[in-house]
């Protein structure tokens, strides 16, 4: 019972915050809502018995990525007076509603009318690989090669970024 209450609290936080991201006219406030949504999702990970992913969610997304977004949005200094989050074209308005309706209907029909074949291979949440220590062990033995290749990927990015900034004109065209 307590599980369900906690789940609904975190799910409610994420959903409300996600709605805030979409509907708030001020982009800075939108980004702050996104932080709240990430925190809600990370809470869900904690309740599912995946504390590592939950922590990473907070540290990486809420802590680093979203803050970067916030800086970018603030640097652009968008003027938002009298602007709606959606454009209401004559045709596109209805097209958008139609698509959203279809998608929602599809999701609801799947949820309400239980269908066969919705089975994940659900591993035991108490299995040892869910401990951070074992996660690290697997990462540096079975998946070590992938880990090293990611290092190469991260090397290519800064070198390319520096080279790009040295081209005359940089990121801007003539």
């Amino acid at each position, binding site marked *: 019972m307590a599980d369900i209450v906690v789940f609904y609290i975190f799910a409610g936080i994420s959903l409300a915050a996600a709605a805030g991201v979409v509907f708030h006219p001020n982009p800075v406030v939108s980004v702050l809502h996104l932080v709240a949504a990430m925190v809600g999702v990370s809470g869900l990970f904690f309740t599912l018995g995946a504390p590592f992913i939950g922590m990473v969610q907070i540290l990486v997304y809420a802590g680093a990525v979203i803050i970067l977004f916030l800086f970018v949005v603030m640097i652009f200094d968008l003027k938002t007076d009298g602007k709606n989050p959606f454009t209401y074209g004559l045709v596109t308005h209805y097209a958008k509603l139609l698509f959203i309706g279809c998608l929602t209907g599809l999701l609801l029909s799947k949820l309400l009318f239980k269908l066969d074949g919705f089975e994940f291979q659900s591993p035991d949440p108490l299995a040892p690989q869910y401990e951070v220590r074992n996660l690290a062990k697997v990462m540096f033995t079975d998946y070590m090669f992938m880990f090293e290749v990611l290092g190469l990927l991260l090397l290519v990015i800064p*070198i390319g970024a520096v*080279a790009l900034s040295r081209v005359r004109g940089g990121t801007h065209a003539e």
Partner: protein
Amino acid sequence: MNFNLSELIVVAPLFWLFIASIVPMTVKAFRDGQEMNPFTSLMYATFGLVGAAALTLSAVKGFWKISGLNFVEAFSRAIVIDGITVWGSYIIFVVVGFCLFLLYDSKETRDKLFSEHIFLVLNATIGMALVVMSNNLIVTFISIELMSLSLYLLIALNKERLLSKEAALKYFVLGGVGSAILLYGIAFIYGGAGTTNLQEVGELAAQLFENNVFFRFGTILTCVGFAFKISLVPFHSWAPDVYQGAATPVTGIMATAVKVASFIAFLRFFLYADFYDLNSDQFVWFMQWLAALTMIVGNVAAIMQDNFKRMLAYSSVAHSGYAFMAVIVASFGTDSDAGVTSLMFYLLSYSIMTVGTFALVVVFEKSADTVLLTTDLKGLSKRSPALALGLSLLLFSLAGLPPSIGFFGKFYVFSATIEQGFYWLTFVGVLSSIISVYYYLRPVVVMYMMDGEGFEVRKEAFFSRSIVVLSAIGVCVLGLLSSRIFRFVQSSITESL
């Protein structure tokens, strides 16, 4: 620890390529940002590619002989070197080698940041070689990202033109969406199958595909992600703009080596799955329509282009359709070896022809702003008979006229599809390759029948001219030897030593 030194030897080609890629940049860093002589950098890069090819061969010969099997696995079965890997990486190394010489010939890329270009090209090559080796969906994803990121940067480095920035941004955004869809699909496949190892997924695939909605969803999403990467038709719209905006040597890499790597990744995804005994044939219909639409739309759109590079871009989309027919045979036919062999042979023939035609574009490009229209080739037969003849042979081969290698590539693919009973798909393939003859022969008509002053042949582009002639000779000679080469490919893929 569960890895040992022999596993590092398996991936030694990648290490070798990486070391070769950082040499020119390191020297530049120690010389206060002064570039090495471009030709020396070029030689380092070529040395890297040749060394990587030799190491691949020696690893194969050594390990296959020791174990008596025709494959070797490493890093908890994440990496496999088998016949497909060897052929795929050889095609990639050769084509990238050609494109490095084109990079040297192209004024824009040689004079500015050449060592960075070398670094990015060789790292993209590491990505491609890794895609070809990958036996695990995680490795596939990471290496596709390594390859794509290097390419985004290479495209953006092409001078400060509006077109190149548009191309880079378009490729970045659409490629990012494609990668995200691919990763989303992989996550669902992991959820359904409980593993990312391709062989283990393949054993469960047919059964899970029918019973598990999540797995089906993941498979379709992964297919869509791969379709983005190999520009199959509903997902092809980025290709012409990106091919046009990138520097021509980079376009050459994207149209050949990257396509070879992505096709092999797609092939491996299906190779171990026994989808041919599925009860529903909706999935195979979906795949067949992808191939058919790609061939029709690619060829019809190519007719309308008068820009030579855009025409080649649409032609490369159309060729994706032909090669995809072989992937369908490999995944949904009962004889998957026929599909694999014809795909490898097709990719070989396509790469040689395409790299030659892009080399011809480099021959005419005085600066990055040069736009080569088909009509600019007029009178080429008088000014440079060798180039005109070479281009004609390459275009005949692309159109699939005998006895060139392009004809035999199509021939083996079509015969494999007919044997497996994909009759209407083969019919569409033949029909669209007849359509393609029109636009492939138009430049030939312009070169030989129309007089006048077209673009001048750049005298300093020695390597590009040689590559045009070399690939034209290759197209003819390999075409005449094609049955022997086909058997060679077949034996290296299917038989053990």
